[in-house]
């Protein structure tokens, strides 16, 4: 598939941009509570993912029958949606049936081009932040508000933890 490379390129540019923008224009961010630099960068990245996911799922679910419960919604996002974007199924989807879902992908698309090594591990967060947002955004549009975090123990495998917030 040839569109793939294009999105890979765009994704790496988005990452690149988000990590550099705050360094070049620090004066626009002089707020009272200054979070650590790195966290701020990743939250921008996550937010871009969020808005993308939010809009994308809206269009994709137009022809799909209504989901009957949370589990079915999660399944849709983690199987159909995931497969369409990442070209492979999640290798493992687990839940404790109390609002915690764990998706495991053993060859995550944005990590497969990085050399596997402990030294590269510190760079992993910036390549998964967009996807965290993507999942959170798509779930949000389907009526599930959640927190999504990622965990990379060894490249290229990645675990996404989805914590559904109920209140």
């Amino acid at each position, binding site marked *: 598939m040839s569109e793939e*490379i294009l999105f890979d390129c*765009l994704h790496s540019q988005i990452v690149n941009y988000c990590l550099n923008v705050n360094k070049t224009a620090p004066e626009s961010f002089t707020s009272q509570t200054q979070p650590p630099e790195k966290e701020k960068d990743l939250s*921008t990245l996550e937010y871009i993912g969020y808005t993308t996911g939010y809009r*994308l799922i809206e269009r994709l679910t137009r022809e799909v029958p209504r989901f009957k419960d949370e589990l079915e919604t999660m399944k849709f996002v983690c*199987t159909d949606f995931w497969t*369409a*974007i990442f070209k492979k199924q999640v290798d493992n989807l687990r839940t404790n049936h109390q609002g915690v879902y764990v998706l495991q992908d053993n060859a995550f698309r944005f990590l497969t081009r990085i050399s596997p090594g402990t030294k590269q591990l510190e760079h992993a967060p910036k390549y998964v932040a967009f996807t965290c947002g993507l999942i959170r955004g798509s779930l949000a549009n389907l009526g599930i508000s959640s927190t999504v975090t990622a965990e990379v123990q060894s490249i290229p495998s990645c675990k996404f933890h989805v914590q559904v917030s109920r209140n």
Partner: protein
Amino acid sequence: MSRQNTRLDQKKVNTELLTLAYGSFVTQILHDQNLNIDEVNKNLERIGYNIGLRLIEDFLSRTAAPRCLEMRETADRIQQAFRIYLNIQPAITNWSSSSDEFSLIFENNPLIDFVELPPEFSNLRYSAIICGCIRGALEMVQQEVQCFLVQDQLKSDSCTEIRVKFIRRLEDAIPAGED
């Protein structure tokens, strides 16, 4: 009982993913630059340039295209690249008399599919990323070009027109002290 397939049309998902991610990205840049449109245009062009630098590698390995001997061949290659990567076929027209300048006309442009520009952003060159991309890619094959938007569907022109102008052939610079 895991499903191998997806109920969704993969091609459509990916095109829309690209379009929407780009849209979100542009919005974020606008926000970061405090709505300074000139700065945003520059950013978009540079991002395109960076993508072009890499995309040309993929293009060359995919097509095994030989060296272009004249600008008309280059134009055909660019057209081919659009077909491969965006699944669109721009028309090549308006050659200058010296054959070093031409236009690419896009009837439809997937990047602007869901986009409407508010009047206050009328200077925003939303598709500048494509210009940057062409410039970056050609630079990697030793051609310096100038590339800019002439018409833009987002500004109620009937089509999107990108002008490509050949500037010069780049020579490989040999590091000092080497023959």
